């Protein structure tokens, strides 16, 4: 029962993220037809609204984040303005009132926020129909905005708000994280085959001194590569290649490069271990029917070693899902960096980081489950020991 509940919560979280990944249609805020009268034109562009909070000036784009009452001026120089808002959330007062600004008093109409939209519904779009009149000329202009839900103080409410409002950003981050981890692991795997081969290649008694020297150099180079990339933190490698060289001129490509070469160092050791774990008899059997070293490696040893190292390589993938977080230092907006960005937008650190922890958990858990499913299908679950083995 507990497990079922846990899975249900994870499922709902994933569902909300996916639903919110598709952005709501955004209303065009640009009016196409402009008035002929230059005075009205000026008024439309320069008119200011005032927030209920200390009468702060609201530029027109601030209407997109409406969370308090606000005031609409009824005059701009000698132009009279009247307003009409059709919305269940906002109401324009009948009477005008005077508010005191630093620059002087002005006459305004108050827009009252009747209620906040629920955090589940998200932002609510509204239109202000403003009629500008001068003499017997009048012009209707639309201002558009959104009433935003107010962030609840409670942890659960705050989390829900964060998830619903910034779901798209979480989703994009998670997608990039998965993409980086997956492609990094795959590229790293192929690099690792090269590195492991270079590290293990051995010369034999028939070869020339030059060839022996070359193979020795390859061994040394592969060892050095593994030592350096396993012995330094990925955050340092990322900074080194991006801030030091601006590799590929694109942080994303540079980040992918760093994940790949880092993973390659680890997988190379995994593959080397798997090769060494394979019974020596397999190699000898290859030699005994006349196969060469490279043929034995290619057709007998590598296929077995790679199959045996699949669980460990899967682990590398899971580790990469978490470790790509360090790529935030070079400005890649993967999951962790997206979260940092979100906390910068609404200052609810606890909720944002709790959510992102949960998302990472969902990613790693589902990956682990998927990998063990694959392993079972390939018949790689640990077999029961029988008395004869």
């Amino acid at each position: 029962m507990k497990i079922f509940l846990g899975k249900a919560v994870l499922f709902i979280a994933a569902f909300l993220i996916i639903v919110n990944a598709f952005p709501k249609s955004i209303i065009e805020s640009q009016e196409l037809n402009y008035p002929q009268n230059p005075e009205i034109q000026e008024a439309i562009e320069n008119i200011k609204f005032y927030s209920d909070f200390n009468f702060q000036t609201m530029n027109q784009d601030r209407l997109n984040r409406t969370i308090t009452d606000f005031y609409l001026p009824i005059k701009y120089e000698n132009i009279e303005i009247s307003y009409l808002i059709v919305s269940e959330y906002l109401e324009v007062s009948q009477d005008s009132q005077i508010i005191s600004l630093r620059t002087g008093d002005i006459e305004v109409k108050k827009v009252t926020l009747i209620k906040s939209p629920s955090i589940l519904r998200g932002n609510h779009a509204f239109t202000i129909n403003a009629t500008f009149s001068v003499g017997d000329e009048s012009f209707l202009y639309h201002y558009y905005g959104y009433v935003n839900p107010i962030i609840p103080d409670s942890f659960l409410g705050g989390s829900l708000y964060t998830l619903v409002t910034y779901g798209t950003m979480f989703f994009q981050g998670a997608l990039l994280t998965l993409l980086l981890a997956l492609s990094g692991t795959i590229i790293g795997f192929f690099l690792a085959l090269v590195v492991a081969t270079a590290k293990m290649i051995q010369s034999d008694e028939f070869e020339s001194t030059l060839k022996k020297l070359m193979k020795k150099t390859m061994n040394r180079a592969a060892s050095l590569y593994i030592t350096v990339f396993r012995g330094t933190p990925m955050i340092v490698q990322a900074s080194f290649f991006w801030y030091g060289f601006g590799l590929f001129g694109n942080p994303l490509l540079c980040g992918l490069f760093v994940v790949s070469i880092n993973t390659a160092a680890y997988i190379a050791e995994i593959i080397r271990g798997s090769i060494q774990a394979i019974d020596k008899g397999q190699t000898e059997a290859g030699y005994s029917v006349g196969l060469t070293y490279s043929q034995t490696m290619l057709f007998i040893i590598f296929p077995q070693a790679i199959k045996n190292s699949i669980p460990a390589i899967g682990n590398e993938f899971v580790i990469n899902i978490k470790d790509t977080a360090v790529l935030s230092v070079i400005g890649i907006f993967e999951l962790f960096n997206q979260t940092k960005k979100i906390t910068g937008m609404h200052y609810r650190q606890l909720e944002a980081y709790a959510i992102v922890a949960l998302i990472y958990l969902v990613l790693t858990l589902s990956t682990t489950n998927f990998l063990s499913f694959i392993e079972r299908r390939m018949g790689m679950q640990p077999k029961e020991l029988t008395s004869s083995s």
Partner: protein
Amino acid sequence: MNIIEIKNLHKSYGLEKVLKGIDLLITKGEIVSIIGQSGSGKSTLLRCINFLEQPSSGEILFEGKNHFTNHANLQKLRTKITMVFQSFNLFENLSVLDNLTLAPKKVLKKTKVETNKKALETLALVNMQDFANKYPKQLSGGQKQRVAIARALMMNPEVILFDEPTSALDPEMVGEVLETIKDLAKTKITMIIVTHEMSFAKEVSDRVIFMNEGVVHEQGKPMEIFTNPKEKRTIEFLSRFNK
């Protein structure tokens, strides 16, 4: 005609001397059994013949020539002298059929059709034709060893080396493998068999070699060795089996 000549062969691992000067001639078509205590150097001697172990000193000639000179010669030698191992060593990642056809395709450059046909014929020889598409882990020990024998036969070798072919088998399965080897013995292919199956050695071999502490202690016709051994050490060794 001597197919294999071994001259003053020494092999040591570090300070430990395993073979201390072996001289041996093996004629074409001969079936030779090597018996002796564990650690007496039987397997090492066998593995030196196809250079799975490099001799420390001495010479091994195949058809009068030393093949341990370069890759091409060594590879050629190993297609002429194949080996059957104690622990079967079938290629675990390949099916029975692919186990048999891999080397003929890659080393002898034969076509797929040709090798598949030959593989099925060879499997029929060891009575394993129904298992062509199975994988090694689906087979019993005896079946694996019969497939391994078929694999060794696929290269049309001049000599087959058997390294304790029944030591890793359940007692019930020893019989089927020995029967297969006996059938093979009738084809007059040269065979060198390291074994602990004394009655088998007695029945199948033309010559029995008793090895002790890295040297050939006594050799002769199976009847002589088993019924009338001359050396004290041989008598001691054989008396344990006759109990």
